[in-house]
């Protein structure tokens, strides 16, 4: 359970917060207003946001308790609620080899971890026995191309790149052409980070997709938004805008090995039905793991996950 231990370590602070909040309730005969407030605070501190927090609080309030409320009992009801919200968004990133190439387009705001995720994805698909190609369509940021090329060397993956400042759409087009010619299984296209309120940059993204479709009408097969695990409620605005301009098919959450809680996932799961494919939990090529709702929740609220044994 490498993944779980790392995630648990990573999420420890949030779990400590939730747990300490909940521990204060231990032994109480019934849940009173102040204990409800403690849970509320704990959920807010995990970045769940107000609507999700209030919904969960409502559910806990209306839960029928048999006998005195114990810490474990409260925690398991909380975990139940969270798991029920997150389980539907479990969903691996599946590659259809028949596509040749199966095109994965990575999008997101600046600094969310797209390039690193592209490198990790390349390593993952290769481990799965697929041939992989990377395309450096972030032609804007200084040395983004070199960064992806670095991942290419690390993971022994060919990288298609052009000049800095070049046309990202043209590069994506060219990459698909090459991948088709070389019968590559998966093509991962890294794009420049863009803030979702910059309309001209979002239009540029739409253009990249239009151009991709010219070469391969059913591509991109996966358009995945890469979200920073430390992000707050702005994640909702990000997903919404990228969904509108790029038609998202899934999400990857990065940097969950730190103190960030990634609780905004709960809010995202309630609002969008986008699957969470993978989570980033470190800096090496292997630090990308499948998202499992139950494990995530266990790490979030503390206690023992059922599948640890």
């Amino acid at each position, binding site marked *: 359970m490498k993944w779980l231990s790392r995630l648990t370590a990573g999420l420890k602070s949030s779990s400590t917060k939730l747990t300490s909040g909940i521990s204060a309730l231990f032994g109480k005969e019934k849940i009173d207003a102040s204990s409800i407030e403690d849970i509320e605070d704990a959920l807010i501190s995990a970045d769940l946001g107000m609507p999700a927090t209030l919904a969960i609080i409502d559910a806990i309030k209306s839960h029928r308790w048999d006998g005195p409320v114990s810490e474990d009992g409260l925690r398991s009801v909380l975990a139940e609620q969270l798991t029920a919200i997150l389980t539907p968004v479990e969903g691996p990133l599946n590659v259809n080899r028949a596509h040749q190439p199966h095109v994965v387009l990575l999008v997101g705001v600046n600094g969310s971890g797209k390039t690193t995720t592209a490198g990790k994805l390349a390593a993952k698909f290769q481990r799965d026995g697929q041939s992989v190609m990377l395309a450096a369509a972030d032609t804007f940021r200084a040395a983004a191309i070199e960064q992806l*090329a670095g991942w290419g060397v690390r993971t022994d993956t060919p990288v298609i790149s052009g000049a*800095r400042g070049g046309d990202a759409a043209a590069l994506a087009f060219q990459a698909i052409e090459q991948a088709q010619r070389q019968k590559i299984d998966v093509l991962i296209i890294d794009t420049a980070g863009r*803030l*979702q*309120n910059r309309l001209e940059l979002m239009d540029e993204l739409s253009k990249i997709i239009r151009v991709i479709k010219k070469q391969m009408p059913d591509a991109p097969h996966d358009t995945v938004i890469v979200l920073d695990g430390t992000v*707050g409620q702005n994640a909702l605005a990000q997903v919404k805008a990228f969904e509108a301009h790029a038609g998202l098919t899934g999400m990857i959450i990065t940097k969950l090995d730190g103190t960030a809680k990634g609780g905004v996932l709960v809010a995202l799961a309630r609002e969008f039905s986008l699957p969470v494919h993978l989570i980033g939990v470190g800096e090496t090529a292997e630090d990308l793991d499948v998202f499992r709702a139950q494990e995530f929740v266990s790490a979030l609220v503390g206690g023992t996950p059922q599948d640890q044994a």
Partner: protein
Amino acid sequence: MFDSLKDRLQSVFSGLGKRGALSEGDVDAALREVRLALLEADVALPVVRQFMERIREKAVGAAVLKAVRPDQQVIKLVHDGLTEVLGGDAEPLRIDVTPPAVILMAGLQGSGKTTTAGKLALRLQTRQKKKVMLASLDLVRPAAREQLRALGEQVDAGILPESDNETVVQLAKRALQAASLQAYDVLILDTAGRLSIDDALMGELAEIKALTNPDEVLLVADSLTGQDAVTTAKAFHDAVGVTGIVLTRLDGDARGGAALSMSQVTGCSIKLVGTGEKLDALEEFDPERMAGRILDMGDVVALVEKAAEAIEEEEAMRMAQRMAAGKFDMNDFLSQLRQLQKMGGLGGLLGMLPGIGKMKKQISAAGIDDSMMKRQEAIILSMSKKERVQVGLLNASRRKRIAAGSGTTVQDVNRVVKQYQDMAKMMKKMGSKAGSAGLKALMGGGMPGNMGGMMSGNAPSAADMAKLSQKMGGGSMPSLPGLGSKPPFGGGLPGLGGVGGKKKK
């Protein structure tokens, strides 16, 4: 959010009647709403708690001012409180020391350290005439050093030559030596992004600090950060003693509550903010504006400043004279379009206005965006010089030619002509009515006055905003006169020109 906070506060106070002071109950109810607003803006919970305590003390018993509604009064209290916590006046960087002054950049992965290092070098070189060296101590992320080198080349700063097989500490030592031998004024040390729980890397950072004895330790943080801001800021502060914060991606639409969390936890002011992808997009931090933003009151001050920067005084004077003479042709129309674009385009402008959430949707639904302005520009540029001065010449066949030349349709051309005519009509009215005295008032005093009023809580009513949004969302093109004639733009876009001379920092 501001609208909803305002609405919520209004309903809280609807029963207040004519009592003389805010009771504890009134305040509690209002503060619950304020708390919610702050949490929605991603201010960290412990910080919200402390803050609410302060506000509560100030609010209870505060006399209800006759001229101000209690909801406005609470908003002002909160706004002032936020401004205070965010650090009063921004402190400048401490770099006027025996050279080289050392600036250490630290933060999480992807917070924007390297880009900020490049921006900071440019800023110190151009504004303070410092000789700056950049050195990357990031041996973790692939191509991090190449990125800093590329940025250094772009801004023409000194760059520490790379060499292999050096530890981070050895690199830092060499950077320090190189900077003092080559007589650099400032040495900016970029470091690898690290998690606050990574003991080894945090230890390394402390070691770098001990070795280089930096004059500034800048924590670079993403303004999109959520509740984690408080944990991260505290950990970095405890480990290396942060002296200032740089908040990046403030050009995004996050409310940026992280700013409040981090200044509160570290006791450091936010020294600089990143406001765009270009290397000159690093600005001084303004606590009052940030307070407005966290409360979603819109960044009206930024709007005025942008206008001041974009519109050159001379151009504004020229325009004023032409207006006074009742002259306004397509060339003037074009120059206004371009000024608007320079100010960050419609998207940029609207983002700075209060209550913009709903409007933005309507605007994008109506397909109004900056590409529209480019098309308008193309249409005007496809007119002959003569046509631009004598718009009356534009008959059907000329319009057809212009449409073909600009890659648009005749309808588009007609629309631009119509807009021009509306605007010219307004200009004429103003020119004849105002005379030079009236015009002067419009140009010089009009805008700042309006803006000042807004910031003190005298915001345009929801009805005004709705009208404005209707105007913008209803038509298929942004009507410039429409934008200009409604608050908060005050005296129309030409009026913005006056700000250039008056309010430039």
